[in-house]
C-alpha cells in the first residue's frame, strides 16, 4: 500500500504530512524517497513535519533529522498527536507548534519600534466610506472608521474611535497581529487568513482587542487590571 506523503507550502516553510503506514521505518523510507523525487526543488527549505499518530523515540527522530540535513533540508518543527513524539521533538530542540510563541513576538515588535517611525502611520481624521488605506506596517487612526472604509495593514490596527468599516491586520500573514478599537464593530475583521464578522449584539460600547486564538478571531474587552495581574 502506498504511503500518503503530502507537501504544503506554509509561511514558515514547507509542511510535510506523513500518512499512516505499518511501521515508522516504512513511513520514514517513503518520506525520504518522496523528498528525493523532488530533486533540488526543496533544497534549503525549512521543514515542518506532521507525523500524525506515529510514536517516535529520540533515536528515530535524530536519524530522521540527520537524513533530512543530508538532503539540505532543515527540520524545525514536528507536529504530532502523540505526546511521546512531541516530547521527543522538544528534547531535540524542535518546535511542536507552527505558531511562534508569544515571547518571541514581544521581542520582534520591540525591534520594530526601534527601527524607525515609518513602521506605523497615524491618521487624525474620520476614515470615510470609499477610502482604502494599505500600509505594510501598523496603522493608528485617531477618529472613527466608517462603514465602507477599508484599512489593510501588514501589522496591527489601532482605532481610537468607533470601528465600523473593514479592517485586515497582518495582511501579509502575521497571525500575531491585533486589532483594537474603542468600539469594535467592524463590517468585517480579518487577521492573517482568518475572516470574522461582528455578531449581532447589543451592549455598551467598550474598548476591545481582537486577536487570533487557535486560528479563530477572538474579541476581548480591554481590561488593564486583568493584564496587570497576569503580568
Amino acid at each position: 500500500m502506498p504511503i500518503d506523503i503530502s507537501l504544503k507550502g506554509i509561511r514558515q516553510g514547507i509542511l510535510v504530512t506523513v500518512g499512516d503506514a505499518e511501521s515508522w521505518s516504512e513511513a520514514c523510507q517513503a518520506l525520504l524517497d518522496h523528498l528525493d523525487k523532488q530533486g533540488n526543488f526543496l533544497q534549503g527549505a525549512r521543514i515542518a513535519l506532521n507525523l500524525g499518530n506515529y510514536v517516535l523515540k529520540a533515536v528515530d527522530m535524530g536519524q530522521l533529522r540527520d537524513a533530512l540535513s543530508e538532503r539540505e533540508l532543515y527540520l524545525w518543527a514536528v507536529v504530532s498527536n502523540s505526546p511521546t513524539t512531541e516530547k521527543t521533538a522538544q528534547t531535540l530542540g524542535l518546535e511542536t507548534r507552527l505558531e511562534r510563541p508569544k515571547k518571541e513576538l514581544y521581542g520582534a515588535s520591540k525591534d520594530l519600534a526601534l527601527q524607525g517611525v515609518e513602521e506605523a502611520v497615524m491618521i487624525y481624521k474620520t476614515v470615510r466610506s470609499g477610502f482604502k488605506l494599505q500600509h505594510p506596517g501598523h496603522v493608528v487612526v485617531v477618529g472613527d472608521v466608517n462603514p465602507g472604509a477599508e484599512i489593510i495593514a501588514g501589522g496591527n490596527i489601532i482605532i481610537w474611535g468607533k470601528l465600523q468599516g473593514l479592517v485586515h491586520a497582518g495582511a501579509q500573514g502575521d497571525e500575531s497581529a491585533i486589532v483594537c478599537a474603542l468600539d469594535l464593530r467592524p463590517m468585517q475583521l480579518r487577521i492573517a487568513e482568518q475572516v470574522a464578522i461582528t455578531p449581532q449584539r447589543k451592549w455598551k460600547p467598550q474598548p476591545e482587542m481582537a486577536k487570533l486564538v487557535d486560528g479563530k478571531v477572538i474579541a476581548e474587552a480591554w481590561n488593564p487590571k486583568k493584564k496587570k495581574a497576569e503580568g
Partner: protein
Amino acid sequence: MPAKVITITSGKGGVGKTTATANLGAALALQGKKVVCVDGDIGLRNLDVVLGLENRIVYDLVDIVEGRCRLRQAMIRDKRLPELYLIPSAQTRDKSAVSPSDMVRLCEELRPELDFILIDSPAGIERGFRNAIAPADQILVVTNPEVSAVRDADRIIGIIEAEEKGPPRLIINRIKPNMVKRGDMLSADDVIELLAIELIGLIPEDEEVITSTNRGTPIAMDNKSRSGQAFRNIAQRLNGHQIPFLSLDQDTSLFGRLGRIIRQGGN
C-alpha cells in the same frame, strides 16, 4: 457683495437634492435675496419641473457654455418671487458637455449681480458631481435617515474633504419622527454621529412636498407647511442667523396641534 456659491449634493439619488435646491432658492428669494438656481444634472434635468418653469425654457446651461446665447438669456425669472432665477440644464446632452472650469467661469460671471448661486448636483461621484462642486464656496450634503443614503453621503463627504472644499454641512431629509420613536428609523443624532459634520437642516417627511413638486410650487412658499418652515429655517441659517431646529415631536392630539398653530401665529 459678490454671491456665495452653494452646491447641493448627496451621492445617492432620490434623497431630495432637487427639492432642496428649489425650496432653498425660493426661501432665500422670499427673504429678499437675489438667487439663481443652476441645474447641474445635464441630461436628466428636473429642477425646472420642480420650480414650475419647464415651459419657459429657451436656452440652457450648455448653450451658455458653448456660446450660443448670453448668460442673461438663459436665466429664467420666476414671476411669483421678486428675484429668483433658474438656469436649466440641457436635456439632449450629457455631463461631458460641461467641464469643471466651465462651471467656475459661469459662476464668476454670475457672482457680481447676485447674492446666492445654488447648484443642484446630479447623483453619483462622476463628472456631473465634479462639475457641480468645482465652483462651490459651501457644499450642502442631503441625506435621508437610511443606511444606504448615509453610506453614500459619507463617501461624498470624504471626496469633498479631499478636494479641500471646506467642511460641508448636512441636511437630513424625510425624517419620520414616529418611526424614529419606535426605533425603526435612524435618528438625526445617529446620522450626525456617523457623518461628523455640522447639521444645517432637519426636514420632516411631508406628503405635501410631493403635491407641491407636481404642481411646480416649492413648499417653502407655503407658510403653513412644517417642511416649508424647515427649508425657510435653512435659508436663514445660510444667511448667518442662528435659528433653533424644529422640534420633530409630532403631537397629533387636538391640543398639541392647537398649540402649534398658536406658536406659529406668534412667530
